[in-house]
C-alpha cells in the first residue's frame, strides 16, 4: 500500500441528534496521483465522508465518529487526522488536504488576494514569493491568460466557471497533497464543466483527487477509481472500468444502469 496517500479505516460518523450513523464502518484507500470518484444517490453519505477528510465538519459541534482516517506524509509517516485537536494542527491539515465546493466561493477581494489568501494564512509574507506562487497557481488552474491583466479587479466580477477555477487555483497555491471536490461542476454550464474536468485530470500529476459527483458520466470520464456508496455504506470500490463495466455487486449495477437513485 505504498501508493496510498490517505486511507479511511472502519470509519463511522453520526450527526448530532441523529439516531442512525450516516456512515457505517467505511474503509477506503485514496491512491496517490489518481482520481477517486465517490458516487451514490443523495443522502448516501458521500459528502459526509468527503467533509470528514479535512475535518471541515468540526465547524459544527456535536458530531461523533470512530475509526481512523490516516494521512501519509511525504516523509512516509502516517497520521490519524481524527486525533487532531489543536487549531494549528487543523490549519496544517487543511493546507495538506484542500477542498473545492459545489458553488464557487470567491472571497470579496481582488483576484490576486483570493489566491494569495491561503498563502498569507500559511505565513508567506515575501512579496516576490507571493507573486510567483500566485502566478504559478493561476497557470496551474488554467486561468492565467484570462486573469493576468486584471489581477487587481474583484473576483466577484468573474463568470461562474472562472470563479470555480479561481477557487481551484486558490487551493492549488498551497501545494496540497490531496484535493477534495464536492460536486464541483453541478452549479456550472456544460462548457465550464468540461473546462473544470480537463483541469482536474491535469491536476493529478501534482495532487491526489477525491471527487464527489452526481454525474455518472463525469465519474467514468474522469476517475481512476470509483467508490459506490448507498445508505451510509461503501457497497463497492474498484477501478473505475471495473465498476462501470463489470461490477461485482447487483446494487452497483442497478445504480449505474439507472434502475434507481
Amino acid at each position, binding site marked *: 500500500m505504498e501508493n496510498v496517500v490517505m486511507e479511511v479505516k472502519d470509519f463511522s460518523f453520526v450527526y448530532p441528534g441523529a439516531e442512525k450513523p450516516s456512515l457505517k464502518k467505511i474503509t477506503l484507500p485514496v491512491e496517490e496521483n489518481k482520481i477517486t470518484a465517490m458516487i451514490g444517490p443523495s443522502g448516501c453519505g458521500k459528502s459526509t465522508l468527503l467533509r470528514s477528510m*479535512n475535518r*471541515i465538519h468540526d*465547524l459544527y459541534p456535536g458530531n461523533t465518529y470512530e475509526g481512523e482516517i490516516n494521512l501519509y506524509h511525504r516523509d512516509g509517516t502516517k497520521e490519524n487526522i481524527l486525533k487532531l485537536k489543536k*487549531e494549528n494542527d*487543523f*490549519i*496544517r491539515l*487543511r*493546507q495538506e488536504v*484542500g*477542498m473545492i*465546493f*459545489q*458553488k464557487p*466561493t470567491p*472571497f*470579496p*477581494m481582488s483576484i490576486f488576494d483570493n489566491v494569495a*489568501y*491561503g498563502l498569507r*494564512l*500559511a505565513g508567506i509574507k515575501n512579496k516576490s514569493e507571493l507573486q510567483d506562487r500566485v502566478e504559478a497557481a493561476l497557470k496551474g488552474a488554467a486561468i492565467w491568460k484570462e486573469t493576468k491583466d486584471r489581477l487587481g479587479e474583484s473576483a466577484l466580477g468573474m463568470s461562474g466557471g472562472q470563479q470555480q477555477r479561481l*477557487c481551484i487555483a*486558490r*487551493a492549488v497555491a*498551497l501545494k496540497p497533497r490531496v484535493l477534495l471536490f464536492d460536486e464541483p461542476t453541478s452549479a456550472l454550464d456544460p462548457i465550464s464543466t468540461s473546462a473544470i474536468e480537463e483541469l482536474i485530470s491535469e491536476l493529478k500529476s501534482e495532487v491526489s483527487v477525491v471527487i464527489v459527483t452526481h454525474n455518472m458520466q463525469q465519474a467514468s470520464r474522469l476517475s481512476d477509481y470509483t467508490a459506490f456508496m448507498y445508505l451510509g455504506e461503501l457497497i463497492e470500490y474498484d477501478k473505475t472500468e471495473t465498476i462501470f463495466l463489470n461490477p461485482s455487486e447487483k446494487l452497483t449495477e442497478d445504480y449505474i444502469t439507472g434502475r434507481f437513485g
Partner: protein
Amino acid sequence: MNRLMLNKTILILSTLAAVIGVGFLFWILITLSYKGIMAIHWTTFTHDLVEGGIRNLLVGQFTMAILASVIAVPVGMMAGIYLREYGHGSKLAAVIRNLSDVMMSAPSIVIGVFVFAILVDPFGGYNGFAGIAALAIMMIPIIISTTDNMLGLVPQELREAGIALGGSKHKIILQVVIKAAKVGIMTGILLSFARIIGETAPLLFTSANNQFFTLNLTEQFPSLTVSIYNLATYPDAPSRDLAWAASFILTVIVLIINLFGRFVVRNKK
C-alpha cells in the same frame, strides 16, 4: 355583477386611502419647506441659539450622535458577530437576541428616564455624557440586529472555504465574512444614525439643552431637537420661525443620510 361591484369598491377605497396618506405626507413636507425656507437666514447658521441661530445646536446634536455611534457601532457589531458566528443555536444567544429585539421597540422616553436615573440624578445635573449614553442605548439594538441579519446572508460555503484554506475561525470572520456583509452593515449603521440624529425624548432630561456654544460634555448640551420642542411652545414669532427653520434643516439632514444609505446599497450590489 356583485363580485365586480365589490372589486370596484375595494379598488376605490384602497386608492382613496393611499391618496389620503400621501396627501398628508405632502402637506407636512410642503408646510415644513415653505415655513422653514421663509424662516432661514444666513445668520441661522452662523449664530448660536441665544442670538437667534442654530449653529451651537447643530454642532451639539452631531457631536452627541457621532460620539454615541463611536460607542454603539463597535459594541453592536461585536454583539451581532457573537450572535451569528459564535452563539448560533445556544440559549444565551437566543436570550440576547430576544432582549435586543425588545430593546429596539422600547419607547425612547423610557430610555431617557433610565439614563436620567443612572447618569443625571447621581451627578447633580443634566450633562452631555448622559445624552450620548441614551442615544447609544437606542442605537445598539439596531446595529446588533443589522449585523446579525447581514452576516446571516453570507453563504455558509464562504466560511467553509476560508476554513478549508487553513484559516482560523476569527480570521475568516474578520477578513472574509465581514467584508462580504460590509455594504449591508454600513447601510444599517447609516440608517440607525439617521434615526438617532432626530431623537428628542432620550435627550429631553439627559443632556437637556444649552443656549450657548459648548463642547463641554459635563454641562447641559445644545440639542437641535430639544430646541425645536422648546421654541415651538414659545409665544413669540421669531422663536416659532426658528423652530420651523430648525425642523426643516433636520428633515433635510435625515433625508440626505437616508438617500445616501440607499445610494450606497444600489451602487455596491
